[in-house]
């Protein structure tokens, strides 16, 4: 399909702008203006609409396909939540920062405050800041809060501990805050090796970053002990909320012993993934860390009105232009109050049920690295299929031909030929059965007819793109202009 630039014809116009109602001003000096207009596309509105409509049809999406990406929580995005976000479209963030401006933003500020409170109750934390703009951003913010805590106490800390099954954003975020990483291997029971952890823990460890259940979908039976060991050394426990969908209403990281957490509104709280964002990664803390929360902080005053605290001396500072991805928060807020207490508990129950069903139906056909009750996601290995020369990626490509988005492959890194499946609670048994049937078909084909899997996909606009060529050519911009 042609690029929009390849469809451009000089002189074509899209949007009609209004005429000016003021006189034409004198031009700026020549050295300040561009000599040639920027090479933007020149297409009619119909051509524009056709182009993007047809582009969209080249995507798989939750609304069109089963999309069981492990660790991503591709649940259904309720349309009513899409409808309510535009209610705040015209609210200028700067209004709330003007002198006397807070009174004109009580709706937005109220939502921010309420959402923070709801997330705090859901996670068992004392206060939540909604400013971080994505999960990884929340992780970085959380580690910065921990760094500020240690600095205030005069602690000298150098390390952050992560399990080897952790998502890459964990060590990357800690490194961005200047810490060195200690990685702990996974034990046969599927989680961080407790003995190795004990041995690695010392007075120079600032924090331990974990997710629970972990990226293998398993709940760590020793999690409380880990928290205790860390706290003995004044290391703080950080909870990566990516897998919160498994434990909503059942377990709260704050109760378990975590000191800082982040949640992913675009995972657990049903806001759309957008093809890779925008997300939102609110951070929750126990009260010892409240003084360090990002600026500005939304507070409720004695008279019940909402205001911004902008001059907290111990705050780590600012992580976003304004208050965070507000438009995403509106959708998450709507989701939470619409589901309510019972609805949210049902989420984790059905998510865990669905994942265990997938595990039960597939374990006869794929290797299971950790044969335990999983939570909201299950991990298989295509090691058995590899004996016939079939890799996890081949199975993924075959699934595409059969109309399913593949699960996550090659993550977590500590499982060879990993296949991570997270159906989420919003999928029906029929959909899952159809997917299971194709997975079983793929397993059988791996033995009898592996070439079919190597040929896949055959039904998409492209097949097996040369990633090496892309990395070597580095062609990331269409020229000339």
């Amino acid at each position, binding site marked *: 399909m042609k690029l929009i630039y390849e469809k451009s014809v000089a002189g074509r116009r899209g949007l009609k702008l209004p005429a000016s109602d003021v006189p034409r001003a004198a031009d700026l000096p020549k050295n300040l203006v561009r000599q040639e207009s920027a090479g933007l596309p020149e297409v009619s509105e119909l051509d524009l609409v056709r182009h993007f409509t047809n582009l969209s049809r080249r*995507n798989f999406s939750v609304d069109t396909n089963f999309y069981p990406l492990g660790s991503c929580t591709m649940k259904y995005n309720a349309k009513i939540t899409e409808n309510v976000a535009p209610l705040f479209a015209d609210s200028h963030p*700067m209004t709330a920062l003007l002198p006397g401006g807070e009174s004109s933003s009580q709706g937005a500020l109220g939502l921010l405050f309420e959402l923070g409170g709801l997330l705090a109750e859901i996670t068992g934390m004392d206060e939540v800041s909604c400013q971080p703009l994505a999960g990884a951003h929340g992780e970085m913010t959380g580690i910065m809060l921990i760094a500020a805590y240690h600095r205030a106490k005069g602690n000298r800390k150098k390390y952050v501990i992560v399990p080897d099954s952790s998502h890459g954003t964990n060590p990357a975020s800690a490194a961005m805050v200047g810490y060195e990483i200690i990685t702990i291997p996974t034990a046969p029971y599927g989680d961080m090796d407790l003995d190795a952890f004990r041995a690695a823990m010392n007075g120079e460890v600032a924090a331990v970053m974990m997710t629970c259940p972990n990226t293998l979908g398993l709940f760590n039976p020793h999690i409380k002990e880990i928290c205790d060991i860390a706290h003995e050394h004044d290391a703080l426990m950080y909870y990566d909320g990516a897998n919160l969908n498994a434990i909503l209403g059942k377990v709260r990281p704050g109760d378990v012993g975590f000191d800082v957490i982040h949640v992913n509104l675009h995972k657990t709280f049903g806001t759309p993934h*957008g093809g890779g964002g925008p997300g939102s990664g609110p951070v929750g803390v126990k009260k010892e860390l409240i003084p360090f929360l*990002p600026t500005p902080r939304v507070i409720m005053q004695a008279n019940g009105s909402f205001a911004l605290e902008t001059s907290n001396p111990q705050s780590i500072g600012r992580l976003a232009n304004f208050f965070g991805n507000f438009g995403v928060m509106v959708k998450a807020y709507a989701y939470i109050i619409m589901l309510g207490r019972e609805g949210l508990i049902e989420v984790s129950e059905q998510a865990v049920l669905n994942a265990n069903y997938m595990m039960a139906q597939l374990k006869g056909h794929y290797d299971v690295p950790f044969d335990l009750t999983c939570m909201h996601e299950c991990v298989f290995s295509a090691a058995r299929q590899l004996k016939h020369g079939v890799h996890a990626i081949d199975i993924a490509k075959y699934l595409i031909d059969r109309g399913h988005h593949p699960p996550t492959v090659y993550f977590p890194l500590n499982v060879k030929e990993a296949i991570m499946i997270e159906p989420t609670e919003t999928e029906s048994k029929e959909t899952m059965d159809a997917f299971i049937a194709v997975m079983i078909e793929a397993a059988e084909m791996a033995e009898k007819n592996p070439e079919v899997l190597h040929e896949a996909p055959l039904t998409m606009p492209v097949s097996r793109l040369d990633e090496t060529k892309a*990395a070597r050519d580095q062609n990331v*911009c269409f020229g000339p202009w």
Partner: protein
Amino acid sequence: MSYSPNTPEDIREMLAAIGAASVDELFAPIPAELRAQSFALPGGMSEMELLRRMKELAGNDRPLIGFIGGGYYDHYIPAVVDHLSGRAEFYTAYTPYQPECSQGTLQALFEYQTIICRLTGMEVSNASLYDGGTALAEAAMMALRVTGRNRLVIDAAVNPFSREIVRTYLTNLGVEIIEISSKNGLVDRQALTAALTDQTAAVILQNPNFFGTVDDLSDIATAAHEKGALLITSVYPISLGMLKSPGAMGADIVVGDGQSLGNPLSFGGPSFGFIATTKKYIRNLPGRIIGETLDRNGKRGFVLTLQAREQHIKRHKATSNICSNQSLCALRGLIYLTSVGREGLVELARLNYDKAEYAKGVLGAVKGVQLLNAVPTFNEFTLVLAKDAAAVVRQLLDSGVAAGVPLGAYYEGMDNCLVVTVTEKRTKEEIDALAKQLEAAL
């Protein structure tokens, strides 16, 4: 009501397949003492009730006629932007890790990267960052990596929120940040050159700057390069319909906020940050990058590329921890710029400029109002009022107008200064009315 379709019969069948007696049994691995101590949330509600509640909440926000910016701009968003970015195949898709079934997102982001390059005059762009402020912080970190130095020089006329974000990002990294005070809304070139040494990784400026001043930074680019430092510029995309591009000035890294490109104000987000640079620094770019390639049959296609820079491979050595970008917002930006088009952006920039110039004249003529300086501006300019600007703004809010951003909170000694923003959405009537309101307040 959790949107789970499972009926009691479904649940029974699945439990049988699993070999468990109840759903509770599946949670058995979790010890009793770790169970939630509280889950005190209100009961749920229907769609209808939700809509009512949300309208009520939104109704507590008072609409104002806005002459305010601060990094976010009230521009008209063409109907096609909502319409096309609202297609479910775009917004309910995930990061394009499986390229064969994500060519929609991948090609769109490739087109986005191209449009950012064309707009800014740079050679390579990534597939978006979170916002303009964090993009600036990422650019600073990129310059530190590229040069191996640990000092930055930043102009105080860069957006104060962005500067704060840069400081927050660099807090724990032992980097020295030297801030150069502005002189009457203009960069103090003398102080800047004095601060520039061969230990400086980058010089950071914004154009137009927070006071609205438009400048040609080419000489600063030359000065920086002489010392082996990079020039990082933060730019306002709509202004690039008229102003000299940062690429033409010799900038090494260009960043900015994409809110003004088809993303609503929405109380501060989501928008996107853009970052663009020269080919030689491509490996140092943070975030996702889309590359063109061929498939096994020689057909053109697009993939995520240079992933070895990113967190999921390099982990703690990654160029950044960023995972999600702001894909849908970047898509909106692309659709917006395609709708406005090559000639349209020139016209749009002209509209903004002409209206701001008109406002400058009308407001500058009000008794008790002066312009901060006589330097060129685009669609923002700074006034000096006879009274405290914060008090004037507070007063004018009662009449339903946000007259501008008072600078006292951000710049010392500028309590009487007000930055006024005029976009194509502001009418002559609104501008004339503002002049009258200002006159009354002073």
